């Protein structure tokens, strides 16, 4: 069977499964719609959270980043997993005990302030919308490639599918669909990794393969990789290239940001008990770690395969480089997408791939007759998708990877859309505009809000505002500098009052926003940067992506100072805080609405 038919079959079968689950798990009440009736088993919830969290970026882009950044990419691995420790220890059980539907609702009640709730809703919507744009774009790209339709049709198909299962099912439908999507995506990710690890090291477990010797030699895979890239002028794979301070702060920003992202926190409202919220975060991390510990192996092995495909013999020898006319099939396939580009700079018909910016390697390259790096474009995002082809795996594995990438993008898009629609129907409409709304009407409002959000997300996915990549820093910066500190102080500092919390959120939010805009342009408009975005200009060498952690510190500090000089919160709020600190009585709290 040819690849196209196989892809149709595999992708089609997985979609039939998702929609079938959505019909089976229709939501009947607002509670089922928002939090799946708080009846989801912690292991199931953990799996759904993992699918929700791991987006197209985790599935497709991360291993590519690791392949080209080497050790420096550790910030993403630690940053996007360590946040779950903060969630489990500092937020999830208490927010579950509080027993409401949304993060902004907690902030509004804890700080007895509609203004605080508004600030939280705003942060939530900005963070979620920026995220969802990237997902819809990913869905469009994937569909257009595999269905061989144009990009816009791809986005429409994706919108229609998300619409069916997210609008109908709400959290209940989404949760069960995400469990299926997790199974598809993890299977699709690990199968090629196992094959490749087995090929290179003889060890079928990629996590161990990465630390093993190359087949038939006593040289370890990582040493070999260091050697190969060094010989071609690149910095060693396992060496550190970023500054230590920036790595530290970026990891911290990503961790705090993860723990503050509303669509992740929301998942812990769906478990039956407070104790389940703690273990559910652990299960979520187990399912995430299966992919995240495989990714470094995928990245390193893909880089090794790529280098060895091109550099076939000793560096500098006359026939040590791949003849362009003999390039493999996958090379040609990716050339047609424009994501892989070759330019024969020295006209020898062979491909030279080396670091032509390395001053120490320049003389050597000149002596070989090399006139610059000829792999002018190697898009990082193709690594995971091209990996099975590079390793000559059967067609069904390639079809599976396509289905996995789509599952990752769709599950994250659905979770984000739910967070957005809940914010609109529950926080804005029920919380502020019309508190007396009936449950039927609220359910209708949230479905309409979801449909509206899908249309907006689809539109933005088709016409990305040109800064989709930069806004990821913004989403994490916002969550880290405003939402996380407000939640944490609300639980751990009984004396934190409304003014302190609002001042803190604004200080954190504005300092982070201004720092990002300073180097990336006001509202990302090109040409309005106040200083070039280079390490020399950064404050203490802190990149804009890493500033969220500093913003969070400023938030904590200013809130603390202000709370000391303003009146303490009223008695009933202090009781509320005492109450959420113990699990007892949670059922009552949940039945309250």
């Amino acid at each position: 069977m040819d690849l196209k038919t196989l892809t149709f079959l595999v992708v089609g079968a997985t979609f039939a499964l998702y929609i079938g689950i959505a019909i089976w798990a229709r939501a009947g009440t607002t509670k089922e719609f928002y939090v799946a009736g708080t009846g989801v088993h912690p292991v199931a919830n953990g799996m759904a959270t993992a699918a929700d969290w791991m987006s197209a970026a985790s599935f497709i882009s991360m291993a590519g980043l690791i392949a080209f950044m080497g050790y420096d990419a550790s910030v993403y691995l630690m940053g996007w997993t360590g946040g779950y420790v903060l969630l489990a220890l500092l937020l999830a059980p208490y927010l579950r005990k509080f027993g409401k539907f949304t993060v902004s609702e907690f902030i509004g009640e804890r700080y007895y302030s509609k203004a605080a709730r508004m600030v939280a809703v705003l942060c939530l919507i900005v963070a979620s919308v920026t995220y969802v744009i990237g997902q819809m774009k990913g869905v469009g790209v994937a569909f257009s490639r595999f269905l061989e339709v144009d990009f816009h049709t791809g986005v429409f198909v994706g919108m229609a599918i998300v619409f069916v299962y997210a609008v109908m099912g709400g959290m209940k439908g989404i949760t069960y669909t995400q469990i299926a999507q997790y199974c598809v995506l993890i299977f699709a990710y690990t199968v090629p990794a196992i094959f490749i690890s087995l090929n290179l090291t003889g060890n079928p477990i990629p996590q161990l393969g990465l630390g093993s010797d190359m087949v038939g030699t006593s040289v370890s895979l990582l040493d070999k990789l260091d050697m190969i890239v060094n010989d071609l002028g690149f910095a060693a794979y396992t060496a550190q290239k970023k500054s230590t301070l920036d790595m530290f702060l970026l990891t911290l920003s990503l961790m705090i940001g993860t723990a503050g992202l509303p669509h992740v926190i929301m998942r812990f409202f769906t478990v039956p008990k407070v104790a389940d919220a703690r273990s559910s975060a652990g299960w979520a991390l187990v399912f995430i770690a299966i992919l995240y510990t495989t990714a470094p192996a995928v990245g390193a092995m893909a880089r090794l395969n790529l280098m060895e495909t091109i550099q076939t013999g000793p560096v500098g020898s006359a026939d040590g480089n791949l003849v362009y006319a003999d390039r493999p099939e996958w090379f040609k396939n990716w050339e047609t997408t424009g994501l892989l580009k070759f330019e024969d700079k020295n006209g020898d018909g062979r491909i030279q791939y080396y670091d032509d910016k390395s001053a120490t390697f320049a003389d050597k390259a000149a002596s070989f007759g090399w006139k610059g790096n000829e792999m002018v474009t190697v898009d990082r995002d193709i690594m995971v998708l091209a990996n099975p082809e590079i390793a000559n795996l059967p067609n069904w594995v390639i079809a599976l990877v396509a289905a996995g990438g789509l599952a990752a993008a769709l599950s994250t898009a659905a979770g984000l859309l739910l967070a957005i629609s809940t914010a609109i129907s529950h926080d804005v409409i029920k919380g502020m505009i019309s508190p007396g709304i009936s449950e039927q009407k609220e359910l209708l409002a949230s479905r309409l809000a979801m449909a509206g959000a899908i249309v907006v997300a689809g539109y933005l996915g088709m016409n990305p505002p040109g800064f989709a990549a930069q806004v990821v820093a913004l989403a994490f910066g916002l969550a880290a500098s405003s939402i996380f500190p407000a939640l944490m102080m609300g639980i751990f500092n009984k004396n934190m009052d409304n003014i302190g919390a609002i001042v803190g959120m604004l200080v954190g939010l504005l300092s982070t926003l201004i720092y990002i805009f300073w180097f990336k342009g006001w509202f990302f408009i090109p040409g309005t940067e106040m200083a070039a975005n280079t390490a020399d200009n950064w404050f203490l060498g802190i990149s804009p992506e890493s500033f969220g952690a500093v913003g969070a510190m400023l938030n904590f500090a200013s809130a603390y100072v202000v709370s000391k000089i303003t009146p303490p919160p009223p008695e009933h709020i202090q009781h509320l805080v005492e109450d959420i600190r113990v699990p007892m009585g949670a059922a009552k709290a949940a039945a309250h609405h």
Partner: protein
Amino acid sequence: MSQPTQRQAYWTANLKLVAGCLAVWFVVSYLFGIILVDQLNVIKIGGYRLGFWFAQQGSMYIFVVLIFFYAYRMRKLDQKFNVEED
């Protein structure tokens, strides 16, 4: 129903546990994975340099264990102070 002083004791015990877990969280990722990475890279386990292993593998395994350890200890604390959900 638990007494206010008992609730206070429960909360203090919880804070101690959280502090201990976060210390481990900090050590395996920030200390071993970033700050001391060069020093630890001198040591090799299999084909991995130790600092690199902590940064790209070990810290994540320990995070998982930490959360389950915390959940388990908290379940015990909930029982000890009689504040579990019914």
